[in-house]
């Protein structure tokens, strides 16, 4: 039977005054998907992610998460329903430490966020899970440093760790490797590749090398509209995509 | 009834002149200067001193108060305020409360704690009846002067180059800087002019309101109400808000004295919740 659709948008529109940032996008993300979302700058990729994650409310159209109509759910409710995301610009807690950030996220996930009597760390199972996540992301060495003083690359990894700590069904990665120096990009690639199979992934990325290595399916967004969708091979050889976006550069698949 | 309305308008106009400087500086640099009242007090006490000690005619005191308060504003801005633009709102609030405490103590030391009064020149006192209601000459004088100031302010903003650059900087500081407008210099000038206007308002106020060392604290609340209701993106917003506040305050004290102060504070809180950017201002896109 066909894999379960975890995330779906129907005829999604978002207008800012006169500008149509998202133009009737219908899109579905099956379980275990490794989907890339590409398109020239200003194509509306981040707006689309913000609509899916509830940071923005759509002008019209609907969004479904694991079958439930979440169009009017707040970002908070969607997070609890299993939708997590990273941000293009790091959105972390500067005064906390990575271990504290993960402990907080896990506590919120388990409904322990408002327990006010027992100290942070009383739940040793949370601590172990947080430590394991840091290890998985290879940032155990900075577990107790102030997030505000971490290197940019480490912060990008922490963004992914926080998203994972939410045990999401769907994970939206907004340019995870953006601004990361060359030698550290490999580390992020490995981490993204090693993400658990049952999580459906959408990756927004400009680095074609990473997109074609990672994605099993690709959508191309142009001027807010869904231009074309298909496997990496189809997209790489599609003349229209080449003309609109890839330019003349030769692509080795 | 007409008397109360006119008293309210005069009071409202006075509040506008006192508060306009603060509206623009808040809109321009997003700087919360709770100490704006000290410049008004400076103008007021200067007038009191000149008239009581030096016998300077009242009309001469007005420009003197403007210049003195503007100079004070310029000096303070260049020395102290400059370091606070990038600080948090909390720091700005604490800094300005500090200034208020300093000014209260200094005036208390120099002039003593009780209310100062000024004996206005004869041609400005007395009342005349108009449409059956008795109108204070001084009230009309205040309305005239403030009306003149409002018109000239509006013209300065819309017609002059400085005005257009100021409005651009208020709308979006970053873009304005991008276009080469020296926003900090504009701010320094606006801050000085705003303080000067407050000083002038203080001088005019000696005829209507009472001056004592706690003036900046007492009137800070009125300024905040004018800003919250009027918004900071236009001049007409605070003007209408000041008039509304002036009339509501005077009428409130006349008709429902028990509830008087209650009305204006409730208006402030309600407007802040319903339209945080102000009753009259368009939704600020900042």
């Amino acid at each position: 039977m066909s894999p379960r659709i975890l995330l779906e948008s129907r005829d999604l529109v978002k207008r800012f005054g006169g500008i149509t940032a998202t133009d009737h996008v219908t899109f579905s993300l099956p379980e275990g998907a490794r989907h890339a979302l590409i398109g020239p700058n200003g194509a509306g990729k981040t707006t689309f992610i913000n609509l899916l994650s509830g940071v923005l409310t759509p002008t019209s159209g609907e969004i479904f998460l694991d079958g439930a109509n979440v169009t009017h759910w707040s970002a908070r409710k969607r997070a609890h329903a299993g939708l997590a995301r990273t941000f293009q610009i790091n959105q972390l807690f500067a005064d906390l430490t990575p271990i504290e950030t993960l402990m907080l996220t896990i506590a919120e996930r388990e409904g322990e966020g408002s327990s006010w009597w027992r100290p942070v760390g009383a739940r040793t199972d949370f601590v172990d899970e947080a430590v394991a996540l840091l290890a998985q992301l290879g940032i155990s060495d900075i577990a107790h440093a102030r997030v505000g003083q971490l290197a940019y690359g480490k912060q990008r990894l922490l963004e992914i760790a926080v998203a994972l700590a939410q045990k999401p069904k769907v994970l939206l990665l907004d340019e995870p490797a953006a601004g990361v120096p060359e030698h550290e990009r490999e580390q992020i690639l490995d981490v993204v590749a090693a993400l658990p199979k049952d999580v459906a992934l959408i990756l927004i990325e400009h680095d074609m090398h990473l997109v074609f290595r990672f994605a099993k399916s690709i959508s191309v967004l142009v001027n807010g509209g869904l231009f074309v969708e298909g496997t990496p091979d189809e997209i790489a050889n599609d003349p229209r995509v080449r003309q609109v976006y890839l330019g003349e550069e030769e692509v080795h698949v | 009834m007409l008397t109360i309305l006119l008293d309210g308008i005069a009071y409202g106009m006075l509040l506008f002149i006192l508060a306009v400087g603060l509206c623009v500086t808040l809109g321009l640099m997003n700087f919360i200067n709770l100490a704006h009242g000290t410049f008004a007090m400076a103008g007021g006490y200067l007038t009191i001193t000149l008239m009581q000690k030096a016998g300077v005619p009242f009309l001469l005191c007005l420009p003197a108060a403007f210049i003195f308060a503007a100079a004070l504003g310029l000096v303070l801005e260049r020395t102290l305020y400059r370091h606070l633009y990038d600080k948090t709102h909390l720091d700005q609030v604490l800094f300005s409360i500090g200034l208020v405490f300093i000014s209260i103590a200094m005036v208390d030391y120099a002039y003593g704690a009780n209310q100062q009064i000024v004996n206005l020149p004869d041609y400005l006192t007395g009342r005349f009846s108009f449409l059956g209601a008795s109108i204070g000459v001084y009230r009309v004088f205040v309305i005239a002067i403030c009306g003149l100031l409002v018109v000239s302010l509006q013209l300065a903003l819309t017609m002059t180059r400085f005005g257009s650059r100021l409005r651009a900087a208020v709308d979006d500081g970053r873009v304005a800087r991008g276009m080469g407008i020296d926003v900090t210099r504009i701010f320094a000038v606006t801050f000085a002019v705003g303080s000067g206007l407050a000083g002038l308002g203080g001088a005019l106020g000696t005829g209507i309101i009472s001056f004592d060392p706690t003036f900046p604290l007492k009137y800070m609340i009125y300024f905040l109400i004018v800003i919250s209701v009027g918004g900071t993106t236009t001049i007409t917003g605070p003007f209408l808000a000041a008039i509304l506040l002036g009339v509501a305050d005077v009428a409130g004290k006349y008709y429902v004295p028990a509830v008087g102060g209650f009305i204006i504070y409730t208006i402030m809180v309600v407007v802040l919740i319903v339209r945080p950017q102000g009753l009259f201002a368009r939704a600020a896109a900042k």
Partner: protein
Amino acid sequence: MSNITSPSPEAMRARAVLLGRSRWGVAEIIFWILAVACYWLFPTKLSLLSEIAILGLVALSVDLVLGYAGIVTLGQGAFFGIGAYAAGLAAKFGMGTSLWSDPVIGLFIGGGVAAVIGFATSFLVLRGSDMTRLMVTLGVALIVDEVVNQMKWLTGGSDGLQGVLPSAVLGIWEFDLFGRVAFVYSLVVLFVLFVIARALVKSPFGLSLQAIKGNMLRTRAIGMPVNARLVAVYTVAAFYAGVAGALAAQTTQFASPDYVAFHRSADAMLMLVFGGAGHLYGGLLGSIIFRTMQDVLGNITPQYWQFWLGVTLVALVLFVRGGILGLLDNMLAAWRRKGGAS
């Protein structure tokens, strides 16, 4: 997530570090021993010390809201005043005999009424920027001030509340003239509420407040009910300020409009920032220094103590980042970096 049977060294170290956050440090214990020792060290200054303990409690309530949750408020003085009047009225109608005027009951009445009003007004503080929150809290405080002045039949208006007769604390210790009972009573109440606040701040709830202050966007993305947390902390802070007001009314057997005046909120915020917001002890340290300075300077130049208060405030904002405790933190961090310790 594979279930790790025996915890890895990193996990053990992480548990140690996290639990270390809430262990009572040596400095903390010394602080409280000194506080208790004041009873013998300054027998003639006990009423001043009670006032310091009460001001410390108000500063602590501002710290919960401002230091941890990042809400700028100029209205905590209103809850202090509400608590004072509620407890004062309870003591007055209890006529020093019935249950109502028992001080400990009075604390809960004062704190409770303040918490109810805090809860009701907390929704006003959820939206808006620092500026709107500042003005909304100030507006609420002014309305409370106006109500206290107008309801003369209940609050005694500008003359203040007469006939506040709290009975003996727990029926045992009568408020004596020397202020001994008042001091011990205030200090015990401060300590109990401090311990609760300390647990609250070190708990996941406290961590979520710091997260809200840090980055609102991310807190929503990880599914945190931000508004519920802000309402909760604002109500708890109102309770704390209300209890402080009740203490003030009981120890001075009086309540006047001056208890709801603007300077109460301004002083509380000043003490907190002076000591260092977000350090829990900032408020206590700030109130000790602030009130002692006021007392010392006040005797020298009664009128102009406000001048020196203003100067300290301006200097504080220009030169000192994060108050005294902030300064100590930076020095400690610098020393640790230089010393290459951990």
